């Protein structure tokens, strides 16, 4: 039974990271209707920037996380201004390919600056702790707590503040939002900033128990896409539940079946679920 709870904890950890990445992705999709393939590269950039802050500037973990969130938020806004905004009248295919262009640029950039090697990020929470009779690394608990706090704060922000409500209004109806005087440009920039910051924080939380390298975003972003399709594109609760489902499925699947095929589980789950429900788990119809 201990092993079961151990897997449950692992699943919640990975699920928390996936949820944060998927939330950023789903927010951008809700506003712009662009699947942002560059989101994984932003995640990777977040890890590298924090790594740089810690190794070269000697900042502590939390300051590095904050700095990296700011830098990536700016990167994300730049991507919107310089690329997606310019392509707002182009066919959707062009947005997708432009996102791939940003992805190639950021990945090659990281590789040019920091090399293709794997780096290990130090965290002050590497010690083992015991909780409910389970032994685990403190960092895992930090990830779960961090994800819960961020999701709650974001939820309160979106539902309780005027700025947050403008985001929801834009997602529901762009023209309608413009008619009641919501500044579309400002809201779009804000959404990109939040999405980038979420990706960066997720990366900095997850990196100490993983590794930092230029291709680290690939699997995470593909799984985040799986999550937002499962949860319904643009759906906020869908991203959280979807993230947890995939995280738990991977932890238990990896443990009870095979660790080799652990990464396949998310994709197979997607194929099976979409074969039965082509519209996703939570959406009621075509968007």
């Amino acid at each position, binding site marked *: 039974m201990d092993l079961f709870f151990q897997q449950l904890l692992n699943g919640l950890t990975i699920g928390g990271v996936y949820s944060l990445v998927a939330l950023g992705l789903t927010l951008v999709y809700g506003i712009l209707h662009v699947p942002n393939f560059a989101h994984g590269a932003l995640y990777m950039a977040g890890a590298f920037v924090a790594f740089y802050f810690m190794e070269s500037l000697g900042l502590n973990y939390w300051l590095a996380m904050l700095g990296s969130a700011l830098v990536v938020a700016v990167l994300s806004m730049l991507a919107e201004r310089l690329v997606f905004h310019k392509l707002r009248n182009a066919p959707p295919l062009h947005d997708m390919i432009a996102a791939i262009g940003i992805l190639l*640029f950021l990945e090659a950039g990281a590789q040019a600056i920091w090399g293709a090697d794997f780096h290990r990020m130090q965290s002050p929470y590497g010690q083992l702790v015991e909780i409910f009779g389970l032994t685990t690394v403190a960092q895992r608990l930090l990830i779960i707590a961090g994800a819960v706090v961020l999701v709650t704060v974001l939820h309160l922000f979106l539902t309780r503040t005027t700025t947050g409500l403008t985001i929801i209004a834009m997602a529901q109806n762009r023209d309608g939002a413009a008619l009641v005087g919501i500044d579309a440009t400002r809201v779009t920039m804000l959404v990109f900033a939040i999405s980038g910051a979420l990706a960066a924080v997720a990366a900095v939380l997850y990196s100490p128990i993983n590794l930092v390298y230029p291709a680290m975003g690939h699997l995470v972003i593909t799984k985040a896409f799986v999550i937002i399709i499962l949860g319904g594109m643009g759906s906020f609760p869908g991203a959280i539940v979807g993230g947890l489902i995939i995280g738990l499925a991977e932890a238990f699947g990896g443990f009870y079946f095979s660790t080799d095929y652990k990464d396949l589980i998310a*994709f197979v789950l997607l194929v099976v679920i979409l074969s039965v429900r082509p519209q996703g788990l939570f959406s009621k119809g075509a968007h």
Partner: protein
Amino acid sequence: MKLLQGKTGWALLIALALVFPYMVSNTYFLSVMTQSYIFAIAALGLNLITGYTGQFNLAHGGFMAIGAYAVGLLTTDYQWGFWTSFVAAGAICGVVGYLVGALSLRMTGHVFSIFTLCVGYIIYLLIEKWEDVTHGAVGVMGIPAPTGFGGLEFESAKGQYYLVLVFLILGAYIMHRIVHSLLGRSFVAVRNSEALAEALGIPLARTKRLAFVLSVIYAGLAGGLYAGVVRFLGPDLAATHHTFELVMFMLVGGIGTILGPILGSILVPWLTQSLQFLQDYRMVVFGPVLILLLIFVPNGIVGTILHRRARRAAALREQAQAANAPAAASSTPTGARHA
């Protein structure tokens, strides 16, 4: 300019391709060109489903890897001949493509793209992890070159170049026949508006599935040729960045045209080759170049030329109409008077 259009243009291009091995002394250039042609065949296939039918398939590189691995494994582990394996590669891709298409084409737009991206990942992970069959990360080595027949050999760089060129010309010709047939028109109708196409009596699901299967067969055969020419395979071939490269070729050349993907597949590798001195920085330059192209030349090279020509033709027609209009107006009363 007239000379470069239609049949004469194609004949010139083919003639240029035929004498190319005699213009370069370096076999390296020849092998770069051969690989460009192979990717051009795959890009032609991708263009059928994406450019003509409007479904952005991101598993295309995965299907190319399936074709390549089919040839690689059948020739080395099962001692099949190259050409039987080659045909099998096309068939396997067709069957897998039918199954994937039946499942994925029920989704539309972005969901279809993301779903196929995941299918591509499944293919990649299967090739990497299923070591008993695919040799995993070690890859497949010692794949034989295509067997020669009728006094032809395909061992040398020159022989392989001409072999691949023949397949490219054949592939482009068949694609030309497809897109100009009634079937091709129905593909375009689906791209332009699914609802309208359905209202015209085009069976939507079947048409899309057919386009998908045809397109992945192109990918599979290109993969088969790749195995025979490069003669070494690693799981990397199925990685998503190969699909992204194919998309780039198609887009730079001109999406929804036949010459476009071919031109893109030849030009882009040459461009990245010439950026070789930048090494790791290559994509740092190429990513922004791609975005600039998207913003300023959204139709690609061929598409832009066609666009401009169409606009000029329209302007000429308008001029002619304007010139004719007063004449026509004055001629009717005279005609009426005679009657």
